[in-house]
């Protein structure tokens, strides 16, 4: 059962959060005397008013149902993206709705794909908003929402599950609201330390904040046209490497490791092991590949570039220090491959996730073993627990739909005139919430030239990727609304 009043009431709260967040851009435009104060204020007021109007529809402490949970998450992300694009539209820096919507979705989904040609010419207030959308989207607006809303009832669990990425979730607290609080605290601590570290290695206050937002959320929006490459500082790059790595790790692990003083939890977690293993192996291959191309002299640069770029793609951040399309073929291929990996479950990154690969790989080995011993009973082990048939089927299905959507996206982009290589990478980069792709949408290129319909399709892929497919597909099911 879906009650429109309750549904729109809760959506109103989400919009309200976005509206209030817009107000935080105003100090920047006032301090630097930029011409966007009025448009941003207008956008904020309009958003807040709409939010208040919607919230007034619903009785205050109404608990939500299972289905309403899904509807709130899916519609919430779409609505939030529409309202979030208002500052770009009102200020005129992005004139068309398709562009503004694409940029906002890319922000909230922490993708980092951009249509802005020259970010350095933008006012700081707008850049701040662009980075802030990533930070809000990183932990999930819904998590914020759960942490602050008093009574959501059992539906809250659904909200939470629908939004936190990954096939299996670690509950760090028996109550969802408590869990949301703890995740939020972890996120805030991670953000604070990242900002301080960036400031310490020489960024100014504004850049440090914006880059923190984009790093901790594994988003990848930068305030510079050449992304992190602009700073040309190994120290900055190492700081960002570390924080990308941490942000791509399950937040619950950080919480247990630090709060409970058990640093070994990382190594007991099979997903983290695979995540670290993939990063290590891919970085090493790229490093060796680069060494062969450049000779021995630049080894420390090559090592850092390899690690930076691999982590940036695996965690689905999408920061750039090097134009990797100019790298040797193997390295470029590895970059493309990494777009399908993603960070750990319950982190801010997107993608398919190592946890799902573990389940798929184990399932493969079980299927092979079953050929030899048809009657054997073989459990699927995942760390210390066991994955039942329902979850494995769900993961296999996820993988299938993911690939189908990617293929459809690719075909659609080629119909708009893109070459196949660019189309594949654009589709993969958006669905995996990575951001920059290869070819025409490569690291020094941009999504600006793609026709409007293509931008909508890519925006859809970003949302599908962020919400891990099912919730968003569900709301397109007519029976979901009818029954």
């Amino acid at each position: 059962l879906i009650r429109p009043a309750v549904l729109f009431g809760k959506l109103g709260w989400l919009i309200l959060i976005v509206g209030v967040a817009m107000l935080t851009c105003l100090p920047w435009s006032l301090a630097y005397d930029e011409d966007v104060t009025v448009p941003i204020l207008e956008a904020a007021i309009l958003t807040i008013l709409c939010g208040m109007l919607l919230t007034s529809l619903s009785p205050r402490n109404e608990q939500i149902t299972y289905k309403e949970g899904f509807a709130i998450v899916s519609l919430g992300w779409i609505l939030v993206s529409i309202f979030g694009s208002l500052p770009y539209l009102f200020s005129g820096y992005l004139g068309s709705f398709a562009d503004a919507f694409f940029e906002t979705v890319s922000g909230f989904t922490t993708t980092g794909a951009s249509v802005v040609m020259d970010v350095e010419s933008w006012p700081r207030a707008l850049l701040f908003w662009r980075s802030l959308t990533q930070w809000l989207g990183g932990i999930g607006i819904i998590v914020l929402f759960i942490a602050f809303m008093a009574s959501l009832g059992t539906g809250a669990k659904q909200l939470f599950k629908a939004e936190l990425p990954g096939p299996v979730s670690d509950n760090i607290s028996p109550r969802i609201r408590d869990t949301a609080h703890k995740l939020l605290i972890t996120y805030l601590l991670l953000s604070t330390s990242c900002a301080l570290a960036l400031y310490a290695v020489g960024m100014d206050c504004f850049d440090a904040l914006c880059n923190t937002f984009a790093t901790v959320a594994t988003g990848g929006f930068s305030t510079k046209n050449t992304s992190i490459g602009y700073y040309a500082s190994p120290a900055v790059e190492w700081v960002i490497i570390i924080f990308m790595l941490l942000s791509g790790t399950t937040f619950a692990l950080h919480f247990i490791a630090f709060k409970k003083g058990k640093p070994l939890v990382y190594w007991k977690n099979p997903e983290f092991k695979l995540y670290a293993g993939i990063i290590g192996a891919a970085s090493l291959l790229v490093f060796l590949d680069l060494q062969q191309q450049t000779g021995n002299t630049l080894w420390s640069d090559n090592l850092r570039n390899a690690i930076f770029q691999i982590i940036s793609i695996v965690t689905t951040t999408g920061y750039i220090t090097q134009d990797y399309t100019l790298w040797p073929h193997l390295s470029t291929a590895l970059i493309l491959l990494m777009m399908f990996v993603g960070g750990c479950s319950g982190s801010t990154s997107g993608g398919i996730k190592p946890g799902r690969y573990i389940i798929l790989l184990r399932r493969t080995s079980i299927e092979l073993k079953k050929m030899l011993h048809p009657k054997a009973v073989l459990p699927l082990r995942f760390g210390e627990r066991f994955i039942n048939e329902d979850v494995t089927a769900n993961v296999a299905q996820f993988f299938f739909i993911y690939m189908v959507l990617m293929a459809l996206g690719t075909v659609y982009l080629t119909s708009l005139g893109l070459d196949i290589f660019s189309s594949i990478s654009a589709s993969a980069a958006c669905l995996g919430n990575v951001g920059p792709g290869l070819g025409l949408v490569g690291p020094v290129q941009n999504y600006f030239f793609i026709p409007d319909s293509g931008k909508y399709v890519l925006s859809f892929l970003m949302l599908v990727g962020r919400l891990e497919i099912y919730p968003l597909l569900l709301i397109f099911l007519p029976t979901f609304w009818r029954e």
Partner: protein
Amino acid sequence: MKVVIIGAGKVGYSMAQLLSAENHDVTIIEQSPQRIKILEDNLDVQVIAGSGSSTSVLESAGIHQADMLLAVTQYDELNMVACMLGKKYGAKTTVARVRNPEYIEIKDFSLNELMDIDLIINPEHVTAREIAEIIKYPEALNVNYYANGKIQLLELELKPDSPLIGKEIKSLDTSLPYNIISIVRNHTILVPSGNDVLKAGDHIHLLARTSDMKSVERMLHFSSQKIEQVVILGGGRTGYYLAKILETNHLALKIKLFEKDIELARNLSQRLNRALVIHGDGSDYNLLEEENVGSADIFVAVTNDDKINLLCSLIASNLGVKKTICQMRRTETLPLAEKIGIDTILNPRLLTAGAILKYMRVGDVISVTLFGEERAEMLELVAQPGAIAIDKTLKDIHFPRGSMVGAVLRGDEAIIPDGSFKVKPYDRLIIFTLLKSIHKIEQLFKTGGRQI
């Protein structure tokens, strides 16, 4: 000695039978009228109807004066509670049967300490441990340890091609110390003298220092083969414990476990790490063939059904398994099973009774093993100062017929004695004896004992 037994199931009945045959005062608390009838018809024991967790029943059973309380009902919790109550009322030693693995696998503290129970006995675990020992010594039909593990006893079968056949015991190579303490021939126990001639099919009980045992075996031409694959039939508690023990102790071993209940099979597959759990009926000939059971070194049948165990062991042996171990709950048929060619037959009840008996003769007798159908025992006892046997050589002590000192632990040193060995106070003697002679032996080694 005064013993109170709660629950007259298989183990309770066996214990009552054994103890009353040894002239102990036995009181049994039992609820079921049918079981009470059986007890009263067959055993010379006092029977009290009621629940073992009722204080008034315990009191009327004379718990205040009891030397030992055995709680062996089918309910773990009742057994534990009864033991705790019994201890408070003054029972000197308490023994509880607890079978649930979850109670046994408590990691952080021991259940014994928590509840102040002297011995927690788990028949399935005892059986599994016994089977694991046999797997460790695959050539042996049975394995036992004495003197804190320093002395080992193996039951070995003389194969038709053994070079020992036709020889007198005294003519065997004795460059390493060992003792053959008994021979089972045609299902009867012989206590051998040096002139006895070994025959094919004899089961000999060989006692030696644990550290020497492998060399002794080689000296006497018992070959030990390497075990690579074990098949376990039945995923009940025994099967689970066994697989678990084998997983931890034998890292290279391949283990297959057959269980016909799918839910149990799933559960087992999650609780075990390396063992391959197969869902299927063990008596399904095609399945056993398909899973290539014939190539296994050892086949262990531990389902709850004796008939299935027997049948499947035969099938496995027919498929080419080198050694079959079969659990039989019913003792009457034990000799029969041996006759049809099953290598080792284990009876959980006898094993449990043996483990409990170790606790029975507190003080002088330390460890006990039951042989065959309860006709012989291994005693481990301490020679007390001033006893008849002190300062005498073994050949001068008048042992009852059919008894023999197999090994001695003096301080930390394990000795395999011959006739000229002189007994000193506080020697720990490992003695093989027929059941009826136990009292006579005890008299020989305790202070103020009388020659009977």
